[in-house]
């Protein structure tokens, strides 16, 4: 697609982990029997009225502050009108032209480069109920035999975050989203569980001739329920748009549905999308006045955010920028790493082991940081065993693997499998002598002055000791044997 550059904007919805719903006191839960957590308000019985959940506002303000937004001292709720069975009032209480917070930004990293995306707005609304369509083969309401509604989710506090179209590539969009999700988790306002749809997103994309500033006509992309699908959908949409433009056509402002099976984007039927939401101010709620002093109180109790933590990891633990970024970006991995250090492991070796063996284990097992089969305490013990020479670095990796296999303490693994480092000169002298005797040609080369051949002998000793020999000692003993 040379000559063209994409411009991406994202619109994200995050369900908040408040105890109760946005406008009533029903519990917010997951996995309970359908329609257990309902009341006249969230079932929209006649005469019922909404009351704003104060905690939801606090959580929303936390997100807004973390995204460097201006929290507006006065904001109002609107009714967004449309008929659908998952929307019992037939309007969603949302925000429109006077949202909670505006004009922020979010810094994120792509390949070690910091990018800034402006945030247009953060607003509050309520989630819809869950529809289950039975019969038919589309999984959608059209064509199903009947549909059921579970109102447990209906009315869950929802935050909408809208970015400006500042994201320069599909990969950057994925990074943006992952890092923004990490940020929200960090704030403790949502677990952002992807399977349960606690975080959902749509994207809009346009292309323009490289180096130009004017935005092209965008399309909106839906149905990308994993980070990978987001990237794939955007990657599929770019050539589609470029193809149209290069053929002299124009892009229609439309909504496209991403099909993960085919990897293509197709337009939704325009009828389904032809909504006039008839927004108007929600008369059942008074304007929400947000006390700036209260906001400052929330700002003062914000948890450490990834960007600040990455900087701290660099300065406090002497980590490189790249290492600090890997370890500091996600809450869970950062917490694990700091626990390893707190358990007495050196900061740098702890970082190497966490980023190396531990991350590889998580990836292989498909686990979240902190949920792996090695505790921080055990990893710290292993790091210390390597540091004090009890285990060599290379054996350490075997110890790590056995610790997982056997769910065992590192000391027990070392003892049981004899993986301790051999630092006893007497025990190594015989091996050294054997290796020298078995390789007379190389010994001759060494004696003729080719000192680098020493490495070959070290390797041979390591090989015959299963990597357990103390490398320094082996060097000394080899030099003695060869020089002598």
């Amino acid at each position: 697609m040379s000559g063209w550059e994409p411009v991406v904007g994202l619109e994200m919805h995050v369900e908040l982990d408040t105890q109760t719903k946005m406008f009533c006191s029903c519990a917010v839960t997951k996995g309970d029997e359908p329609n257990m957590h309902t009341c006249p308000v969230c079932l929209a019985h006649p005469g019922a009225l909404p009351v704003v959940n104060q905690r939801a506002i606090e959580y929303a303000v936390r997100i807004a502050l973390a995204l460097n937004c201006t929290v507006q001292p006065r904001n109002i709720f609107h009714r967004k009108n449309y008929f659908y069975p998952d929307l019992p009032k037939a309007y969603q209480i949302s925000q429109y032209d006077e949202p909670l917070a505006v004009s922020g930004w979010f810094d994120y990293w792509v390949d070690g480069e910091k990018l800034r995306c402006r945030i247009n707005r953060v607003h509050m609304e309520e989630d819809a109920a869950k529809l289950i369509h039975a019969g038919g083969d589309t999984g959608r309401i059209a064509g199903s035999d009947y549909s059921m509604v579970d109102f447990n989710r209906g009315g869950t506090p929802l935050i909408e975050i809208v970015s400006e179209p500042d994201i320069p590539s599909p990969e950057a969009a994925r990074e943006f989203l992952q890092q923004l999700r990490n940020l929200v988790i960090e704030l403790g306002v949502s677990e952002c569980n992807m399977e349960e749809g606690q975080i959902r997103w749509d994207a809009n994309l346009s292309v323009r001739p490289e180096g130009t500033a004017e935005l092209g006509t965008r399309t909106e992309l839906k149905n990308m329920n994993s980070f990978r699908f987001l990237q794939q959908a955007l990657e599929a949409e770019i050539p589609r748009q470029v193809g149209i433009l290069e053929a002299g056509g124009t892009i229609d402002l439309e909504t496209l549905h991403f099909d993960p099976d085919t990897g293509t984007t197709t337009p939704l039927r325009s009828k389904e999308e032809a909504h006039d939401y008839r927004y108007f101010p929600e008369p059942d709620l008074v304007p929400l006045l947000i006390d700036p002093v209260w906001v400052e109180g929330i700002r003062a109790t914000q948890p450490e955010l990834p960007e600040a933590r990455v900087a701290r990891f660099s300065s406090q633990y002497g980590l490189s920028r790249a290492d600090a970024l890997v370890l500091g970006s996600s809450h869970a991995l950062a917490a694990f790493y700091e626990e390893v250090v707190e358990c007495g492991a050196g900061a740098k070796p702890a970082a190497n082991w966490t980023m190396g063996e531990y991350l590889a284990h998580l990836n292989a097992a498909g686990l979240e940081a902190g949920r792996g089969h090695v505790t921080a305490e055990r990893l710290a013990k292993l790091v210390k065993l390597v540091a004090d020479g009890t285990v060599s670095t290379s054996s350490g990796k075997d110890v790590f693997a056995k610790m997982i296999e056997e769910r065992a303490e590192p000391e027990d693994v070392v003892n049981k499998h004899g993986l301790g480092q051999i630092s006893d000169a007497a025990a190594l002298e015989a091996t050294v002598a054997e290796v020298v005797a078995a390789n007379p040609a190389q010994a001759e080369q060494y004696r003729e002055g080719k000192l680098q051949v020493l490495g070959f002998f070290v390797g041979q000793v390591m090989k015959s000791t299963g990597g357990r020999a103390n490398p320094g000692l082996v060097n000394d003993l080899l030099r003695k044997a060869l020089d002598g």
Partner: protein
Amino acid sequence: MPTLDPVRLTAREAKRLLVDGEISAAELAKVYLDQISAVEAAVRAFILVTADNAAKYSTKVDREMQATRGPLAGLPIAIKDNMVTEGVTTTCASRILSNYMPVYTATAVRQVWEDHVVMLGKTNLDEFAMGSSTENSAYQTTRNPWDLATVPGGSSGGSAAAVAAGETLWALGSDTGGSIRQPAALCGVVGMKPTYGAVSRYGLIAFASSLDQIGPLTRSVYDCALLLQHLVGQDPKDSTSVALPEPVTLPDAERLDGLRVGIPSEYLAAGIEPGVRARFDETIARLEELGGRCTEISLPHTEYALPAYYIIAPAEASANLARFDGVRYGHRCAEPVDLLDMYERTRGEGFGPEVKRRIMIGTYALSAGYYDAYYGRAQRVRTLVRRDFEQAFAGVDLIASPTTPTVAFKAGSRTADPLSMYVCDICTIPVNLAGLPAISIPCGLSDGLPVGFQLIGPAFSENRILQAAHALEGAIGFEPAPTFRDSGAGEQATEPASSGEVAS
């Protein structure tokens, strides 16, 4: 037991009789249930009479609540059928809620229930409170006890007619553009719309959320204050409710010395019947005899209030009534072929023509491209109307006007022309737009039909209004004497049992 005239008995007197042990709650309930039996076939004020419950509950009040009885214990009440009552069907006079059994009780109703009032039943109204004659009910047309050929007004026509006919001691109504005051005026009873927010709207089936307000319909201003005392209060379930700055006090004023009353020339300018005007002028003269000082004032944006109201109220209604979709409760059409068919037929069958008209007006007014021209502009007019009142109240304590331009009109005479119906509320609508309190009291008859006198006050001036209305009421000496006659020429109405027999 003393002989009681249900048409004249006030709650104040009934309470004294109960407290003094001269009558039991069960006997009092029976007085009203008997009157319902006698006249309801002609008046048709109730959608549902809860006679068995009223008999049982009043007996329970007599038996169990001697020591702990609430301040309203044993006083029979009728509730407009747009307030939800747990376990008692609530229809809003609409087919779409014909089978609706509420799962909770409106805050205002719960408050009087907790004071041990005895509920007699649910009263008729214009469907979803949209109308000024109660002819828009899906179930029945209520008639005015003063002349059965005429309407009782609306939308709280059932409550007003029931109070006037002696079918209840008092009643609850709701007022969005005059729906308490206009029927109170037409039926010759007292009706008050409190300051917006003074009474919780939780459980009041919403018509226009920013305008709706529950209030009392009674036979005296004192009773109005007594009932209002038990309705007001900030409700954590209604974000728009507020606590009154001072409690509602029972009025005792006999003089109005120094009270400054403004008479808006715009309200007298157009369409006030001569008979109504005559009673109004007489009442103003009485007000001055009591020491009040009346001056003409101007509320310059009055002419825009009605059109603004008929944008704002339908706009809010179009969203408020969207929940009646056949999914969770209420009417659902038979055998829908798909979702859209279910929505269309359920709502097509469930709503009457006036409700549909307003939903369509409101939907249109909120549509993309029209919002600023209609809803946005109507809201700006609303601000101007509110400002008119603020400026007026800088110079006067209260504002007086006729409640309605005419006395009760013949049933069927305005149903073909919605605009002629809408102008019934020309003197009451601006008050709702401004969120102010106002009362209507009867001030005499014109052609044998009651005329209403409206007093409007600044926000939270309920006590001032009640004191003035109480003093005026004493000076006017209105006699509640509904004749239950039928002047004919309207639609046919059944002659009730002789009104002479109804007093037990």
